[in-house]
């Protein structure tokens, strides 16, 4: 009787562990995308501040802002809208910054982001939230400055 009780308890514990493991694995495998719109902002600065920080020390800025798993810092950047471009997929890219700087910030949007980009005017002040994906620096091979890349952006 005692042995049976122990066996039942062991089987119960094993089954519980199995179900929990399965649930964890299922969640990990189907982890929802990072919701940038709802996520907390890590840094609220001007685009100029971030550009100048990168141009001053690219490696230090990467160490500070990039994450090991690619889920890097979320910024709210205040800047001027310099131009509206399109990527290879026809998705809008906003170039923001200041005219006198050597580099700018390229802001990319998810394909399901719903916003009327025609409302925007070149030169207007704009506040954009997004994830940093790459920093700005002069590239010797390109022979030009590369912009900061901000992804999964939303316009605030």
């Amino acid at each position, binding site marked *: 009787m005692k042995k049976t009780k122990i066996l039942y308890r062991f089987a119960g514990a094993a089954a519980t562990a199995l179900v929990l493991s399965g649930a964890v694995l299922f969640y990990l495998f*189907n982890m929802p995308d990072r919701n940038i719109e709802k996520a907390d902002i890590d840094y609220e600065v001007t685009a100029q501040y971030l550009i100048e920080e990168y141009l001053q020390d690219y490696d230090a800025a990467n160490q500070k802002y990039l994450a090991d798993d690619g889920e890097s810092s979320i910024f709210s950047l205040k800047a001027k809208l310099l131009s509206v471009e399109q990527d290879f997929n026809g998705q809008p890219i906003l170039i923001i910054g200041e005219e006198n700087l050597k580099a700018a910030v390229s802001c990319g949007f998810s394909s399901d982001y719903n916003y009327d980009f025609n409302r925007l005017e070149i030169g207007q002040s704009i506040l954009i939230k997004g994830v940093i994906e790459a920093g700005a620096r002069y590239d010797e091979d*390109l022979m030009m400055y590369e912009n900061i890349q901000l992804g999964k952006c939303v316009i605030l």
Partner: protein
Amino acid sequence: MRKILFSSLALGGLILALAFTPASKLISQKTHVQFFSSTPAEDIEAHNYKSLSTLDTETGAFVFSVPMQSFEFDKRLMQKHFNQEKFLNTKAFPKAKMTGRLKNIAQIDFQKDGAYPAIITGEMTIHGVSQQFEAEGEFKVQANHIQLHAEFPITLADYGVAFEKGKPAKNIAQTVKVTVESEYSKN
């Protein structure tokens, strides 16, 4: 009035940039870099639309700079694995780069509409490791636009990417297929 001022300043900046840029050097931000991996466990593909490329239509010299954390995956967990320190370590090596020349530049007329096979040769740097590479591609010239399409395999171990046991080792192939596309506009 402000709109005219900003547009003028932007135009001025562009003119200055062009003044210091050879007329034959084209710049593209309309790029697509894709990698595709197939294993018994699963097929994985990732897309990157944020690379920057230059192409000199006279010398055939080209550059692709690829921000590694801009690769997008269907599964968030795979994206985390891809970037992590024990795989591509994108925090330490945030950019991959291809530099090289068109080996058969003499057979490509960027001024005449048409499709031109291209042999691309040069150096690829991934994960801080550089290797020579050669690949075949095609340029399509149409009016003011030049499109590039190239596909080639990359063996990740050649670039110091370790395949230890567990994920992502068993879910990513040792050799992946890379597709590079770019659109350049002639001024």
